[in-house]
Structure formats: structure tokens, C-alpha cells
């Protein structure tokens, strides 16, 4: 047990280092972008005097490392800094964007897990037969369709032609829960690819496990097919599925820009894109911290699950 605890501690420490590295990398890349917040704000009126004035007002004339150090010092006190573009606190940006993002992610995951596992199990159960082929090829084909193409298709058919669902969530803002119908299409689009990859992984894991000597042995001892499938084979598929799930949740939380844009959901992805376009470095940095921490925590969770279900693999930090 203490081994596990020290593993977690080491991973968290590593995670902190990783997050710091991510922030540094993001800072460097953002600084390397052409133009800065002043140029971006000036837009099509690039009057040099005005740009200089804005730059001074934003304190962009200070050296980069000084700005980074100030920001980092603030972060240690839990202060994410303030936006260059609006002067509002970055934490407010993140908090505002997190709500819709979290809601979408939660809904997607809640549906994703039963669907992905269900399809995977179904295919594995009928491995090599018609249902398996059907599930396998449909998931493969859907997996290859870019989200925006699927989104456009679903909106045209379900919302505009048939009028069953609202085409966008425009104007609902954070109050998305009050308009559940508006969430159906975005969640459908978000689900499409993860369901496919999860189902394929579960299927592959289960097919492998069902052919493994221990599954043969269990059947040999009269353990029912269902029990072999769920207690033995499914547990085997859990470790890779957990890794995939962590990656999916990471993706869902770190900005699903295409879906946010198509359905007008002001989540973190939108905040990020705006911040990059505005060269709003503190906001980009704040998001990098949030994303970095999320990634670290999710991967750690997935590794712990993997450790539980594939204990032999060991946990090397």
C-alpha cells in the first residue's frame, strides 16, 4: 500500500514538473507567435503610435521573463492574473468557460461508457459473426468522419429538416441545463468518435481475453459464459479502456472547439481560441495550467485503474 502511495506522490511531483514545463512551453510558443496583444487589439488599424500606447498600457514593454515571473509569483498565491484584453481576472474566464465544458463532458461520459462498453461487448460476444462485422465496420467508418461534417449533417437533418431539436444553443450561455434539447446534438457529435474508439478497444481486449488460457480454464470449470465475459474478459479490457477514457475526458475538458463553435457553446475551447487570437498571454497561461493539471490528474487516475486491472504491468513512474 505504501508502495502505491509513494507511487502517487512521485507521480504528483512529476505532474507538477510536467505542468511547469507545459506552462513554460506554452509561454515560449505564445511569445514566439507573430504579433502581441497590442497588435491583435489594434486589428486593421495598426497605427504604430496607438500600438505603442496599448503596449505600454498593457505593460507589454517589459521583458518577457519579468512578466512571466510576476505571473508565476501571483500563481503561487492562487492568483491567475488578469486578462490583457479586458483587465478582468483570468480565474473568471476559466470559471465561466468551465461550466458548459464540464456539463458537456459529464453528459458525454455518462453516455459514452455504457454505449462504448455495450457495443464492444456485443461485438466481442459475436466475434467474427455478422453483428461483429457490422459494429466493427460502422464504428470504423464513423471514426473517420470529422466532427464538423457529422455536426453539419446532424443539424441539417434533425434540426432543420425534421425540426425535432434546436440547431444551436445560442444565447443559453451557462444556463444550458434549462434547455436539455439543445444539448442533444452537441453530445451526439461529441460521442461519435470516442464511442467508436472505446467500443473497438473493449472488443479487442475482450476477444484477446476470451481466447486467453484463463478464460478457457474458467469455462472448463463450468463458469457461465456471462460470468467469463464480464468478470474475466471485461476486466482485461478495462485497463486500456480506462487509458482511452482518460484521454477522452482530457480531450472533452481541454476544449472541444469544433463542437463549441458549431453549436455556440461558450466553453473553455472558445475561451482558449479567443485568448490565442488576442495574444492574451495570461489567459492562455491560466488555461495551460488548468489543462496541464487536468491531464496529469486524469492520467494518474487512468494509471491507477490500469494498476488495478493489469497489476502485472507494474507502475513505473
Amino acid at each position: 500500500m505504501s508502495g502505491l502511495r509513494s507511487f502517487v506522490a512521485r507521480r504528483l511531483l512529476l505532474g507538477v514538473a510536467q505542468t511547469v514545463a507545459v506552462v513554460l512551453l506554452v509561454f515560449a510558443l505564445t511569445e514566439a507567435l507573430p504579433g502581441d496583444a497590442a497588435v491583435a487589439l489594434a486589428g486593421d488599424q495598426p497605427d504604430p503610435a496607438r500600438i505603442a500606447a496599448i503596449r505600454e498600457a498593457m505593460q507589454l514593454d517589459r521583458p518577457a521573463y519579468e512578466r512571466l515571473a510576476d505571473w508565476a509569483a501571483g500563481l503561487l498565491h492562487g492568483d491567475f492574473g488578469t486578462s490583457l484584453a479586458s483587465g478582468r481576472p483570468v480565474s473568471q474566464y476559466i470559471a465561466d468557460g468551465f461550466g458548459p465544458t464540464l456539463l458537456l463532458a459529464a453528459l458525454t461520459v455518462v453516455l459514452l461508457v455504457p454505449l462504448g462498453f455495450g457495443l464492444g461487448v456485443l461485438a466481442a460476444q459475436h466475434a467474427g459473426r455478422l453483428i461483429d462485422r457490422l459494429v466493427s465496420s460502422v464504428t470504423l467508418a464513423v471514426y473517420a468522419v470529422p466532427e464538423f461534417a457529422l455536426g453539419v449533417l446532424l443539424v441539417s437533418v434533425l434540426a432543420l429538416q425534421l425540426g425535432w431539436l434546436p440547431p444551436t444553443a445560442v444565447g443559453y450561455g451557462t444556463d444550458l441545463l434549462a434547455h436539455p434539447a439543445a444539448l442533444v446534438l452537441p453530445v451526439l457529435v461529441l460521442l461519435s468518435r470516442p464511442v467508436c474508439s472505446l467500443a473497438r478497444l473493449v472488443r479487442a481486449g475482450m476477444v484477446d481475453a476470451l481466447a486467453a488460457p484463463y478464460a478457457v480454464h474458467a469455462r472448463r470449470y463450468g463458469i457461465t459464459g456471462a460470468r467469463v465475459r464480464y468478470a474475466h474478459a471485461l476486466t482485461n479490457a478495462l485497463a486500456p479502456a480506462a487509458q482511452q477514457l482518460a484521454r477522452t475526458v482530457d480531450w472533452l475538458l481541454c476544449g472541444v472547439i469544433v463542437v463549441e463553435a458549431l453549436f455556440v457553446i461558450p466553453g473553455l475551447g472558445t475561451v482558449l481560441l479567443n485568448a490565442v487570437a488576442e495574444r492574451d498571454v495570461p489567459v492562455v497561461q491560466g488555461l495551460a495550467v488548468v489543462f496541464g493539471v487536468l491531464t496529469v490528474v486524469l492520467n494518474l487516475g487512468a494509471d491507477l485503474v490500469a494498476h488495478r486491472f493489469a497489476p502485472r504491468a507494474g507502475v513505473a513512474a
Partner: protein
Amino acid sequence: MNDELTQPDPVAEITNLRVEIDGRAIVDGVDLRVLPGKVTALVGASGSGKTTTGLALLGEYPPGARVTGDVRAPAGVGYVPQHPAAVLNPARRVSALLYDIARDRVRHLHRRERKAAARAHVLRALADAQLPDGEALLGRYPHQLSGGQQQRVVLAQALLLGARVIVADEPTTGQDALTKSRIVDELSAVAAQGIAVVLLSHDLDVVRALADDVLVMRAGQVVESGPPERLWVAPRHEWTRRLLDAQAPVAKDETVSDDAGTLLRVQDLTARHRDGSRGATVAVRVPELTLRAGECLAVVGRSGSGKTTLARCLAGLHRDHSGEIRLDGRALPRSLRQRDREQLAAVQYVFQDARSAFDEYRPVLAQVARTAVRLRGVDERTARAEALTTLTRLGLPEELAGRHPARLSGGELQRAALARALLAHPRVLICDEITSGLDTVTRRGILDVLAGLLRDRDDLSLVLITHDLDTARLAHRIAVLDAGELVEQGPAEQVLSEPRHPFTVSLTETTARLAAGT
């Protein structure tokens, strides 16, 4: 005929079984009667069809097999495979693996009583499988158990099932004498409960110690059968005789001239294993060990005693050690990366698992020849010719040598591995358990090759790493390792006949007991 009347009815019976794959019979005309409380042994080299016959009792056949004949077996037949880890789901705790089976046995009870009853069943089965402290194991995962514990858990599963027949597939292969004797005890305890045991093995000592009835198989057919007492004394079939002969000690070259200098000297060696967070654990500690030129040294110990680690230190494969290894008085670098060509060539190593020690994508001959090219700077063509000569001498004709490893048997590959090492013209050849995975006849062949090498090449010294005292008899001197400590060393005869350390004593006694078939 009279005997049969007093015997109970068989619990399982195979009549005239024939199993064909692609038109080739792998089992042909086998008859088998399995009696309750008795141990029936199927003996034969690998590929003789004994596993196919054994699995037929479970109603399992290789994919694509055509089966004729009659197999009658009760509903629950237990199976203990050679590698028990493979049948234990790595992702489930021991408790889950056992309760799965116990569940069926408590189905008739009231829902509330089931749990306690199942638990009682599980604990009893563990105790019957010689795991009295089984309760502590329930919370563990299979990989956290030792090999012996895994085997007993699998046995407990069979007992839980209420199996009236248990098929044990090569349960002692690659095990040291003490473990073997423990397994013998386990299986006889099982038989004592009135369960029929079908033992598939090529280990004649174990068969003799356990079996009530023996069937000798070759190429899918039963060539001879009878009680072991009779078979051992008066084998009728020539193949049985060969099997028994393979047990006889190998004639060894007794002459190591006294003036032979010290070739390899190990001093104050302490090897460690790094183990993740827990830091380093000491794997083996050897204050002093020497090897003279032309001598054969056997390092004996149970699995986990550190003998392989010691061998790997010598070969430069295990870097994490302190102390000194001197060749001709010159210190050898710890890692083989730092050893020059000459030093590499001087100390060669042959691996336990020959199959995984070959590149599966290139012909064996090409791989063997590379040693001469890389370590002796010989050109490709000469190396090839030399490799061919050596392989042929070790019993691997050109036709076989040109094949990919997958198309050679374990014994053939081990010969090739020896040839690969010999092409370096080594002065020390380390053989790590090179016979442990092989059947008796093949093993005998390899041991004969080693004995021949000792005779023919005076400049070659051998280090035999083994758990098997029979193999160790080949050596001039024996060093005994127990739990990482060098507990005894001396001339072979002395260690074998007058062991001083209690561990050596128990080892020799058990071996003797097994050989005596008691």
C-alpha cells in the same frame, strides 16, 4: 486379470482414441483407464501425444482436430497446467478466482448462508491443496504469489470444483528436488482423497515416486504400460529402455590436472536488484569462488537462490554488483558493454530459454556464424563454414541449421545456442539451466554434448547453473547457493556424498528419495 476384479470401476476411460490434424495422427489408438485414488502417469518425450490424451479427458482437442474413439469422463475434471500463471486471470484476486467456482457449490443454500458456506469451501480447498494459510493469500493477485503457490491455487480450484479426476500436466518440469518432492506430496495427498490423478510427465523420478500405473507413449501411441515397479525393472519396449537409460549418470572426464591455474576468480561479489521504490535488495553474495582452467563447476540452488544472478554477473549481463571478477588475474569490466572483444569472447553464456534467445526472423546458421565474425574477426564465408562444422558436430545437420528458429525443437535450438557460444572460442562457458525445459531424452543428449566438450577441449571451463543434482554430477566441483548466500563448495563427490550444510543435506536427501521412488 485377478487384480482387476478387486479394483473399483474407472472414473474415466479412453478407448481407442485417435486425434488427427491435417491428416496426421498425433494420438493413435490410445486406451486409458483412470481409477479413483490412483495416479496414472503418461510418460514420453515432448510431442509424444501425452498432453493431447490428457486434455481429451477434459473434452478439449487442438483446433481443427478430427477425433475418433471413445472418451468417457465425469462432469468435473480438474486441470493443473505446466504454467499455472497462465490460467489465473492476472486482473482478479485469488478470492475472486476461487469464489467463482465455489458459487456453484452453494447454490442450493439460502441466499444469506451462501457467502459463509462458500468461504468455508474455499478455505477447505486451500487446505487440501496444501495451502493451510490460504486465508492470507485470498486478497492477493496471482502475480503476487510464488510459482508453487500459484500451482496450489490452481489445484484448489480443481478441488473446489469437486473434481473426481485431475489432470496434472508436467507439474515438476524445471523444478528443483525440494519443490518436486513437495509437488509429489501434494499430488499423493490429492490421490489419497480418492481423486484420480492423471500425471503427464517426462520426469521419470517423479513418475516412479507417484504413479500406480504408467503408460509410455511415443509418437502418439502407447508403446508400453504397467506398474512402475515392473517397468523400471524389466522394460519391454526399446523406447522405455532408452527413457530409463537417459536417467543414468553421464560419464565424465575426471582429469583436471592439479597444476591447472586459476582462470576465473570471484571476490567479495555482492549483486543487487533494483526494485522500484523499495530500493535495492541483495540478490547474491559470494565471498570467494574460483574456476580453474579445464574445470567444470556446477552452481546449485533452488529457484530464486541467486545462482542465475551470479552467472549473469560473470557474463557481464548484470552490472549492479560490487566486488571483483578477475580473468587471468585481470579484472573484468562489470558490464559487457565495457568488455573488449577478447574479453567478450572469453566468457560466453548460454541461456535457459533457447527459443527466446534467438532472433526469430533469421536462420539459425546465420546467427551462429555472426559470433565468429564479430568476436574473432573471421570473414563471413569462413565463419559460415565453421558454424556449420560446429553445428554438425553438436548434432544439428545443415538442413536443420538453415531453418528459422520457429521450425526447430527446443533441444535442437539449445544445441545451436551452444554452437553460437562455442564459435567465440570461449575459455569460460556459462550454461544457465540449459536442460531444465527439456524432456529426459533430449536433456540427456545435451548433457552428453557438454561432457564431450569437457573431454575434447582442455582449455574450456564450464560453469553449469542448475537446480538439478543429477546434472551437477557432471561437474568437478560444486558450489551450493541458498537464498543468495554461498553455503558450501567443494569437489563434486564430497558435496554429493558428504554434504555439510543442512541445506545441501536436505537437497541431496530429497534427490535420493525421489530417485528411489519412495
